[in-house]
């Protein structure tokens, strides 16, 4: 049941090679709606994307160039005033720095740990299926609720993690972990890694399963140590899966909102806010400045998307 998905993905992907021996697509037989071509088929999808994904981008740029009060009334063009206001905002440098640190640290840790996890869950051992299912929970569950769960486990009075750390002698008094930026940040990172690991691990597992057994046997015959085999055989072969997991994870973590919202709401003040949380906070005071923040943030998203397209090989094919 799973193999058609994997094989099919390849054939239906953007680079589907024309299969030899397959008869020409039955386009000739399509008599209904001949002039409209693909429009009846893909039109609704394009429309939905234009209305819900493309229009907001336009609206975001437009809003950033207007004067709009808190009630939403538009008072005419503002030029670049809102951008100047944003860049003069004393909170911005910290937000940008934390967003960069957040993205790099969370993605770095996630990828490193998921390499280990994938290797582990690719082995044969009793209960592999059940333990793999446990790994699904943080993936399937609402990220917001997982974050709220951690916030509660870190509660100063009743949090089970505070109790555990006390019992282990790692802290000498129960702390209000989420009440202060310096203490909250490592936990935010931990929770973000926690909810990111399942996807990256499963992607790497899918990559590992494509490595044929003969390759390992050949390495063993040649007398390679397990570590050598891993570095010289496994790693290069899972590289494509790793890169995809990396870039998708990068985009997810950069845009992550519920982890931070559920644990600290970006606070105290804006001390733990990344750009997406910061723009939400700004919206209540000055929607145009918030839009300016969104546009700046969007530039980073575009860079990440280009990175993704590069990784996935779209660019090369365009030039072919």
């Amino acid at each position, binding site marked *: *049941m799973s193999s*058609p*998905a*994997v094989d*099919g*993905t390849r054939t*239906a*992907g953007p680079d*589907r090679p024309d299969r030899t021996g397959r008869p020409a697509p*039955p*386009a000739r037989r399509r008599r209904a709606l001949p002039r409209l*071509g693909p429009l009846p*088929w*893909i039109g609704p*999808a*394009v429309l*939905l*994307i234009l*209305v*819900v*994904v493309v229009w*907001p*981008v*336009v*609206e975001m740029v437009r*809003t950033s160039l207007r004067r709009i009060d808190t009630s939403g009334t538009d008072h005419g063009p503002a030029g670049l005033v809102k951008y100047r206001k944003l860049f003069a905002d004393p909170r911005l440098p910290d937000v940008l720095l934390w967003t960069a640190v957040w993205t790099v640290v969370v993605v770095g840790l996630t990828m490193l740990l998921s390499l280990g996890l994938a290797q*582990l869950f690719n082995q044969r*051992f009793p*209960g*592999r299926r059940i333990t793999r*299912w446990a790994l*699904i*929970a943080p993936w*399937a*569950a609402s*990220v*917001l*609720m997982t974050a*709220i*769960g951690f916030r*509660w486990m870190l509660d100063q009075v*009743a949090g089970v993690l505070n109790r555990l750390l006390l019992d282990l002698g790692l802290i000498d008094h129960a702390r209000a972990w989420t009440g202060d930026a310096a203490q909250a940040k490592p936990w935010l990172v931990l929770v973000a890694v926690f909810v990111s690991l399942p996807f990256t691990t499963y*992607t790497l*597992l*899918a*990559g590992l399963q494509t490595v044929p057994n003969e390759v390992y046997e050949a390495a063993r015959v040649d007398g390679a140590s397990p*570590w*050598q085999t891993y570095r010289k055989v496994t790693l290069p072969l899972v590289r*494509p899966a790793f890169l995809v*997991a990396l870039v*998708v994870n990068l*985009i997810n973590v950069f845009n*992550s*909102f519920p982890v931070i919202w559920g644990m600290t709401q970006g606070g105290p003040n804006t001390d733990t806010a990344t750009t*997406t949380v910061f723009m939400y906070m700004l919206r209540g005071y000055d*929607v145009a400045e918030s839009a300016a923040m969104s546009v700046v943030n*969007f530039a980073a*998203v575009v860079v*990440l998307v280009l990175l993704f397209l590069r990784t996935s*090989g779209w660019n090369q094919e365009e030039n072919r």
Partner: protein
Amino acid sequence: MTARPRTPARPAPGGRRPRARTVLLTATAWALAALFLLPYVDMAVTAGRPADQLRDNGYLPTRFDFSSFTSVWTDTTLGANLRTTLLVAGGSTLLVLLVALPAAYHTARVRFRGRRAFLLLVLVTQMFQPAALQVGLYREFHALGMLDTVWVLVLANAAFNLAFAIWILGAYIGSIPVELEEAAMIDGTGRIGALFRVTLPLALPGVVTAVIFTFIAAWNEFVMGLTLTNTPERQPLTVGINNMIGAYSVQWNQVFAASLVAIVPVVVLFAVIERHVVSGLTAGSVK
């Protein structure tokens, strides 16, 4: 690490080492599995704490009282929030299916002009996330007068999950031989007939995956619910639970009773489609 003599020594002791290794491996995997379930187990424990033991720092309460699972329905807007979430998740799943199926079918079967451009558009939208577009979404639907409705969430959730559905459906349809459809068409069913009688039944695992995945994603969605609705009764489950922890006095047992109501069904559903999800999320990139 490189010098570990495991491999050369392996044939001699006849499986003694591998057994120790398996024990270690198994123990690690089970410990990690427990760790991944920990937050949800603690949620269950907290939901079962009697109200007077909510501020105790013991690992377990002295007795369990799961009345939070009934009181949460009367004390909070959970019922209304669940209704909204069911409507939004159901509605957007239906819309995704209606929109993605023809698009996936056509792109899998016909090499039309603009096919690449269309697939690129789909791939790019998969990378654009609601959190990054929240301000634009808010302004657009404010202008359209659609804020605070179920419709806006149906539309928005459908759009942001369209890409996954198109990939996974296209993958399945692409793997079904055209000959089967042609045979059906020669037998007198039209193209649409062939689609419904031959292609769709064969692509059913893909359809099920797309349906469940979209449903779960819409069920769990938070940012758009928070941004595009503001009447507590019209907000989805995630936002409702977020409101509960914003209250002056937080009833944590009820918060987690509600959370488990939201989490358990989707984890079970997700386990059903688990093996197909990765290919949909990385489609268009893994060759």
